[in-house]
């Protein structure tokens, strides 16, 4: 008995202690995070509607989903949020970070100002933007447009403009976080590389494409993946700006809002679980694709 503990190496003993401390949070995390997710996965094969019994119905929910035209509209919207949100926010935040990096005077203040929207509650911002989007004389944007001699724009009351209009505050908030991360990434690039490039006579564009961006790769991968996940899961902006409808005529409805509606307005838990499985699959595939494509070989 006494001899057992003397047979383990120090490294092994350390590992045992580590696991002893980790076991509590790991068990807690697995229970809180994975168990309900596994249950939801199982619920997607049932017709559970909260008040009834849970009956196994196989893939019926999935085939119903694939035949639901509203589902395809929602998938289209979700990818539109992704396709517009990620490039615009990445480009804007990089440009701002690139120039902000060179600013010394007021650098801290500007950085803080860019970051504040990221800290602000999404619902609060969405509501303010909602008022901005009202027609004149209430909505600030339309008042400016009229002042500049342009016709007014129906932002939220248009099936074509509503989605970008809802996306705008989300991008505006997301940029703050991306700018801060880009700034950190830019600061991590050793100055010696820039100095060497100047000595070799490289212009600003070459420096950007051959030194800065390649060295920012890990930062870019991180930001693309996290912002993709965020835009694919957009919900609070849409909910707050469209009275929870995702309208007009489903033109702004993302998948998460459809899940929310199916579960808490229609009480069709099984069907909602099916949609969450689909969302999970989309997020998994997109993230893996992005990491693969963007990771340096």
């Amino acid at each position: 008995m006494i001899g057992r503990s003397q047979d383990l190496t120090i490294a092994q003993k350390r590992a045992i202690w580590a696991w002893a401390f980790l076991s509590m949070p790991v068990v807690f995390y697995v229970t809180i995070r994975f168990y309900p997710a596994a249950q939801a996965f199982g619920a997607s094969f049932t017709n559970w509607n909260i008040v009834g019994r849970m009956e196994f119905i196989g893939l019926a929910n999935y085939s119903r989903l694939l035949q639901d035209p509203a589902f395809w509209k929602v998938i289209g919207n979700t990818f539109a949020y992704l396709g517009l949100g990620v490039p615009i926010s990445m480009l804007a935040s990089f440009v701002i970070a690139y120039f902000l990096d060179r600013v010394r005077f007021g650098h801290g203040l500007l950085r803080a100002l860019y970051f504040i929207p990221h800290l602000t509650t999404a619902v609060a911002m969405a509501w303010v933007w909602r008022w901005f989007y009202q027609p004149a004389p209430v909505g600030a944007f339309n008042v400016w447009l009229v002042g500049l001699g342009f016709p007014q724009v129906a932002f939220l009351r248009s099936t074509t403009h509503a989605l970008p209009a809802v996306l705008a505050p989300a991008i505006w908030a997301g940029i703050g976080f991306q700018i801060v991360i880009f700034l950190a990434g830019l600061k991590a690039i050793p100055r010696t590389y820039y100095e060497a490039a100047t000595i070799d006579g490289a212009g600003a564009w070459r420096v950007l494409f051959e030194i800065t961006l390649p060295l920012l790769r890990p930062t870019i991968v991180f930001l693309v993946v996290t912002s993709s996940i965020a835009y694919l899961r957009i919900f609070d902006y849409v909910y707050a700006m469209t009275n929870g409808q995702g309208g007009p005529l489903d033109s702004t409805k993302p998948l998460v809002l459809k899940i929310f509606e199916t579960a808490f307005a229609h009480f069709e838990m099984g069907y909602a679980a099916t949609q969450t499985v689909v969302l999970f699959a989309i997020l998994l595939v997109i993230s893996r694709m992005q990491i693969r494509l963007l990771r340096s070989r």
Partner: protein
Amino acid sequence: MKTGKAAFWLGAILAALWWSGPARAQVEIEYWQYTFAQRVQAIDELIKRFEAANPGIKVKHTHVPYDDFRVKIAAAIPAGQGPDVVQLFYGWLQDYLKAGLLQPLPAAAFPASEVEKEFFPIVQQMKVDGKYYALPTAVRSLALFWNKALFKEAGLDPEKPPATLDELVEYAKKLTKRSPNGDLLQAGLTIDMGGQDHHWLREVLIRQYGGAPYSADKKTVTYNTDAGVAATQWYIDLAAKNKVGQIGFLTDGVTAFRSGKAAMTIDGSFRLGALDGQKGLDYGVAELPAHKGIKANFASYWVNGITTKAIGAKQDAAVKFLKFITTPEAMELWMTTVGELPARKSVAEKDANKNHAKYGPFIRGLSYAYATDFVNESAQRKVLIDMVDKVALKNVPTKEAVAQAAAEEQNLLDAFYKK
């Protein structure tokens, strides 16, 4: 050791006496409703009075946030926990019955003939297969709210609201203000299908144009008719032709009316509390405008039922409690605390209530009100929201939009009744 043994036996004998005493005849039942300050207050007061009158019964009051309400109940009752008496929205009765959550109210305590004589006709929807399953303390209906200050400003008599749909449009035109560019500054009437307007269209306007929204057995949509199209066209013309309002003006109808930028709105009795709290808002309440002599209204209500968990002594206690919270006194208390209308005709039609400046129009509207048998209220509301948006944003002809809406709603009804 001797004193220890003696102490043990003394304690055991005392405990036996304690546990077998007549005080053990106390029954405890649970009442559940959703969290809303005034409703919680009202029930707490009712419980206090009930317990004073029934010393052997204790009522535990639990209130659950609205978003979790249905889920928690659905989980608790089958597990033998949760409420003995539960409050539910009248529209959920079918779901609750399907899930076996409610037991029929004993006919001896709640004879059907008495319910039908005493309560407003809409309550008869709680009768399934000849048995009543739940009864309301209070009901709500719709009325026309108008801003007296804006009426005066427009040269209209602030004490004379429009009584017909034609007058409604005529007054609304006078009350609408636009800037030189044509921007809406003040709406004559709010236009908000996402608010109460979809109830107004369904149960009131369609009937006033000579149609009916659903068949007698509630399973068929019947507004895809000339009457339905005419009513819908009238509603759409408010913004499109008469220009007395705008969808989305100041984000929604309640906000527009509260901020004094809309002169009239159709809303429910539950709005009274919020409007009373709005400083500087001098408003009046009137019965919904009639059309071609036809009056109609939409009513909704929350009911109290006894769950299948309540058996034996708890069932008796639950019956007593349910009887208590549906007495005229309870309804009067509920009206002054929560602002909802009494479900008993005798209480509502007391002169003091029927002629009350604010409650009166709602109460008078109850005598010709209909309560829609929703199978999925949010989905059915969305059908009408989308119908109006299709015409306004996609130039779909009204007739086609109504036909599509009727088909969508019919799908919802079919899916529900097939289950």
